[in-house]
């Protein structure tokens, strides 16, 4: 009897299982109860596909070559079909449990073959018939050419009618060089193709990662550029959130941000729409903005907290999320997918994070290099052949630059630190904050460097920002001064503050502007009042105001004939009636209620989940998983009497194997009353949780429910 994958996994050392979990982290969540469950999961289609996607081109090619052989497979065979250098790749495939050992040989789990495809490397099915290649010498005209054309796949050929095929094809069919598949299709047998491929599966194999090329840069310049990018990016984030706080865009019905709002935002920030979409996406992912219950898109409380942190912490909070996210903001607004909107539900793409990490690691391996996009693409194509996407690579490089992970296109030391969870060192690289401004005669003020947060906030309330960058240019005008006064400052306070903060004397026109505005500010008074009470009889007004019973209403006298209160109209009316007055309600229009200055969403932050990305578990998690697995294994190693009892997962695994090997089986099958009977069957296929097999007792094709199969064994012939 041959080994199953579960058997082989049982024989692996603890460290090898741990390695498997590191290479295929999806197998560990949740921790499988025992080895059979692990084997079943490792052979499940989603997990196999994921494992395949993590392979580089070289490994995939070797796996494909292995799949062209039937089980069991000898290592020599694999090496001779591919290359002598394939040993490490074979080892790596084994470590990932994409192949497993059976004594000296290897076997391929059934779903791995499915994942590689029906025609691995463009090779057709094997044939049982004998092929005499010496016959080819006397083949009719055109026959060899025809074969040559099919050698590198696809192995299928179309003819109008196999029975009336031209003589060359007829001859090939007769001599088993082609197999008729149906009336219009012929197949090239694997053996024939391999003969013409001279025993090799692939024309050429690339065992080594391609190198990337580009312009070389100096690390000092890179870091300078990156710091500029980081500063700019943080500013974009702040500016966008502040802007959306003032004018919140309304989310689309289908979810996400409308094109017009995106355009407006990009114009406001002075950046391209793709860049604005990128900034918005990251703020969204970080939970700094949210689509509120009323569909308004607004900053959250988390944004206020974020603002209080240092630049380094702010950047790290966002950049680390960018590394993990499965959302690809480059897709937004592309002509071919018009309805994909920023913050919308359609941005998740499998493999984004993998390509991102690979791309950045490439940059990390090539320090001081601003690579050409083409060469990175070629490299990514090799690293992740099944997932590579040249658009993604271009967008990732672009986004890395916006974020400041790269500077001048090459990876910055901050980017490297981010990738390796090290101390970022951004704070020290940032230009020193300045604590003063220069005020000029044209009522502008210039902060010749980044301002401390407190100072920036203080000036921001009394001046408008005209230009941003390394420095900030502010302009004082009537509206901006008024804003400061609205925030509760006084004219004198503003003047003192400016005198203290400005390195240059305050020009007289500005001083006048501030005093003038301060003088006029507040001459008109606006307040909140819920209800008013008016009466032409001033005596009655006075009476109400002094009525002890009405004291809880806390009414205020605005004018001899008008009182106001903060109490709801119904409550006020009731209280007045109880006190013996006879009030009548009035159409209550014209009461101004001004909105709060800074608006925040009422909902809590709910950033989108990361989809289809599984992070690599820590060593501790892996170790405890291995322990749990071994415990489970002991518990389930209880053997049944006749046919070894297997779990449903194991059953499926075994059945797959036996179907492949076309072996006659005895199975234990539980009936509806729980009684177990043995059946002798020829398994045919598995579908929808049932085994399709020919039952020897009846001689008919029968469906067996897999959960009711208690065990599977090879029938003794």
């Amino acid at each position, binding site marked *: 009897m041959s080994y199953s994958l579960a058997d082989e996994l049982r024989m692996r050392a603890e460290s090898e299982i741990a390695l498997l979990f590191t290479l295929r982290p999806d197998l560990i969540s949740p921790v499988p109860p025992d080895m059979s469950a692990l084997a079943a999961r490792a052979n499940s289609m989603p997990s196999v596909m994921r494992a395949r996607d993590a392979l580089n081109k070289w490994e995939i090619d070797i796996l494909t070559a292995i799949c062209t052989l039937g089980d069991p497979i000898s290592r020599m065979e694999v090496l001779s079909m591919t290359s002598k250098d394939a040993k490490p790749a074979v080892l790596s495939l084994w470590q990932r449990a994409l192949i497993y050992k059976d004594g000296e040989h290897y076997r391929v789990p059934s779903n791995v073959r499915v994942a590689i495809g029906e025609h691995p490397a463009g090779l057709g099915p094997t044939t049982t018939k004998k092929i005499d290649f010496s016959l080819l010498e006397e083949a009719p005209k055109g026959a060899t050419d025809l074969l040559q054309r099919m050698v590198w796949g696809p192995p299928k050929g179309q003819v109008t009618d196999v029975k009336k095929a031209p003589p060359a094809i007829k001859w090939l069919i007769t001599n088993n060089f082609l197999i008729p598949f149906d009336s219009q299709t012929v197949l090239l047998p694997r053996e024939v193709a391999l003969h013409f491929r001279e025993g090799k599966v692939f024309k050429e194999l690339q065992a080594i990662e391609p190198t990337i090329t580009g312009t070389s840069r100096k690390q000092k310049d890179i870091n300078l550029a990156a710091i500029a990018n980081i500063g*700019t990016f943080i500013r974009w984030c702040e500016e966008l959130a502040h802007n959306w706080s003032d004018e919140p865009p309304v989310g689309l019905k289908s979810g996400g941000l409308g094109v017009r709002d995106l355009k407006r935002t990009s114009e406001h920030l*002075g950046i391209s729409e793709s860049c604005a979409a990128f900034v918005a996406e990251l703020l969204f992912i970080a939970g700094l903005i949210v689509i509120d219950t009323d569909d308004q898109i607004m900053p959250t409380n988390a944004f206020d907290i974020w603002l209080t942190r240092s630049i380094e912490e702010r950047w790290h909070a966002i950049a680390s999320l960018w590394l993990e996210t499965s959302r690809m903001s480059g897709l937004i607004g592309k002509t071919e997918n018009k309805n994909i909107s920023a913050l919308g539900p359609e941005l998740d793409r499998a493999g984004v994070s993998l390509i991102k990490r690979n791309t950045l690691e490439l940059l990390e391996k090539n320090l001081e290099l601003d690579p050409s996009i083409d060469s990175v693409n070629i490299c990514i194509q090799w690293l992740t052949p099944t997932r590579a996407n040249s658009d993604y690579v271009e967008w990732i490089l672009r986004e890395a630059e916006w974020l400041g992970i790269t500077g001048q296109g090459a990876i910055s030391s901050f980017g490297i630190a981010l990738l390796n969870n090290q101390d970022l060192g951004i704070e020290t690289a940032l230009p020193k904050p300045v604590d003063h401004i220069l005020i*000029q005669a044209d009522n502008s003020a210039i902060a*010749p460097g980044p301002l401390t947060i407190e100072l920036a906030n203080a000036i921001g309330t009394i001046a408008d920002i005209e230009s941003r960058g390394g420095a900030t240019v502010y302009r004082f005008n009537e509206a901006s001064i008024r804003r400061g006064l609205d925030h509760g400052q006084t004219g004198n306070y503003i003047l003192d503050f400016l005198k203290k903060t400005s390195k240059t004397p305050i020009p007289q026109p500005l001083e006048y502007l501030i005093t003038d505005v301060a003088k006029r500010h507040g001459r008109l008074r606006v307040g909140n009042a819920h209800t008013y009470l008016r009466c032409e009889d001033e005596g009655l007004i006075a009476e109400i105001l002094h009525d002890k019973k009405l004291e809880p209403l806390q009414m205020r006298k605005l004018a001899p004939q008008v009182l106001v209160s903060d109490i709801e109209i119904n409550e006020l009316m009731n209280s007045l009636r109880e006190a013996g007055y006879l009030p009548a309600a009035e159409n209550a229009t014209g009461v101004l209620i001004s909105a709060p200055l800074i608006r925040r969403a009422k909902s809590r932050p709910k950033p989108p989940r990361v989809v289809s990305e599984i992070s690599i578990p820590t060593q501790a998690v892996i170790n405890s998983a291995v322990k749990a697995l071994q415990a489970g294994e002991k518990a389930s190693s209880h053997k049944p009497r006749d046919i070894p009892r297997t779990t449903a997962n194991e059953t499926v695994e075994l059945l797959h194997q036996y179907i492949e090997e076309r072996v006659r089986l005895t199975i234990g099958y539980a009936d509806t009353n729980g009684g177990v009977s043995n059946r002798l069957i020829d398994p045919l296929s598995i579908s929808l949780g049932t085994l399709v097999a020919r039952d020897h007792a009846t001689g008919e094709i029968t469906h067996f429910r897999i959960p009711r199969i208690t065990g599977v064994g090879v029938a003794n012939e």
Partner: protein
Amino acid sequence: MSDGPLIVQSDKTLLLDIDHPLSDECRRAIAPFAELEKSPEHIHTYRLTPLGLWNARAAGHDAEQVVDTLLKYSRFAVPHALLVDIAETMSRYGRLRLEAHPVHGLILVSNDPAVLREVTRGKKVAPMLGLQLDDETIVVHPGQRGFLKQALLKLGWPAEDFAGYVDGQHHEIALREEGWSIRKYQSMAAEGFWHGGSGVVVLPCGAGKTIVGAAAMAHAKATTLILVTNTVAARQWRDELLRRTTLHEDEIGEYSGAKKEIRPVTIATYQVMTMRRGGVYAHLDLFDAIDWGLIIYDEVHLLPAPIFRFTADIQSRRRLGLTATLVREDGMEGEVFSLIGPKRFDVPWKEIESQGYIAPADCVEVRVTLTEEERLNYATAEQEDRYRFCSTTLTKRKVAVALARQHSEDQVLVIGQYIDQLDALGEELGVPVIKGDTPVKERERLFNLYRAGEIKCLVVSKVANFSIDLPDATIAIQVSGTFGSRQEEAQRLGRILRPKADGRGARFYSLVARDTVDQDFAQNRQRFLAEQGYAYRIIDADEVLSKE
């Protein structure tokens, strides 16, 4: 990180710290590609515009030089995206070329057929083009050179113009430097213009723009058409040319409402050029009367619309625009640049002042408090009459008169907008009033008397806003103006900026009615000068009146 004088902002403005030891060097380095936007006391603002970058390309600078300069002087790291953008913008220049073709006349050529295809698809461009000769060449309809260049500029594919300029009819002109010599900035401006072919020279009022014009003529040595704002200015130009160049009286013609002379050097007024008879511009033919080698537009910021249109037709002639204040409240600055040519020379006012070529000026805003009654009337006035009402109040007049009397020893100009107000002021002060309906002869007589010092004070309307050369005027009192016009304020200050024989400074009073629209307009009016570093002092009218 270097500690340079320059801060590069992400909105493409450059802030130059002029107190930095390297600021002078840096200013010279960035001048070829960055446009000076404002120059107050401490930090000057320059801006990188596509036009400026393309001009730098045209002058032989490449993107690498520009980027190097920015990196060299920058205090902080320069955003990479901005550098990429500069390189990208500059690389667009010269992909299209306008060339002269022996058979087809003017042709548009590009080595990049894709670019050519892109621009020929443009709705505005297509009608200006004729037959496509091959993938890289298209015939341009004659006379469309100016419009085509303008349209291509808007599309972001500026054409390099190799078609050249016509030399025009040769006429010998040279500077006659006897008892005076051309200043360095003047000759730099003239040379900057000459190498560029066409363009605008911006110099402060009183800094001698006429001499730049004369120097340009000496470079061209060809027949010249000079367009000026009014007849008085035309005569000043003539006098100045006679004094500074080898030209004789009979070589200079005046083409105005009074005379219609066409001579090798002809000075025409905008007014006569835009005069219409029977719906057609009767005098535009002057542009074709002689094969002009050079056309000078004085006070180019005032260029009227018909001249704009006509200028587009004469792109093969060299054009020089002169102005002190290229700000237009109608936002047409861009049109001026694309039709006359780019800014070739600009220098901060304070820079010229520090060299002693214009007088230092003290700008004073006098805040006048209206009486209770005036305030009430103001509050109830119609919206459109409010400015007129508050700027012509009796209180203001009293203050103006008091100020004029206090400066009875100096040469004083009282400038205003409203004729009744000016007449009243003239009467009260007992001095002549010059306004729109004053005949040219009378104007000249009065100005001459004023220059001679026989009249100490003149009341003038906006006719004296521009081009009037009154070297000894030291005090200007502005009582009202054209609402919030920034250039008017600057031009009026310009009347008193000629350096004084005794080195005295000038003083500019602007009377503003407190808490009215006058104050809002004043704030806008002062912006240009404030940006040039003229800090206004504010005093209260009571201070003036108490001295009485």
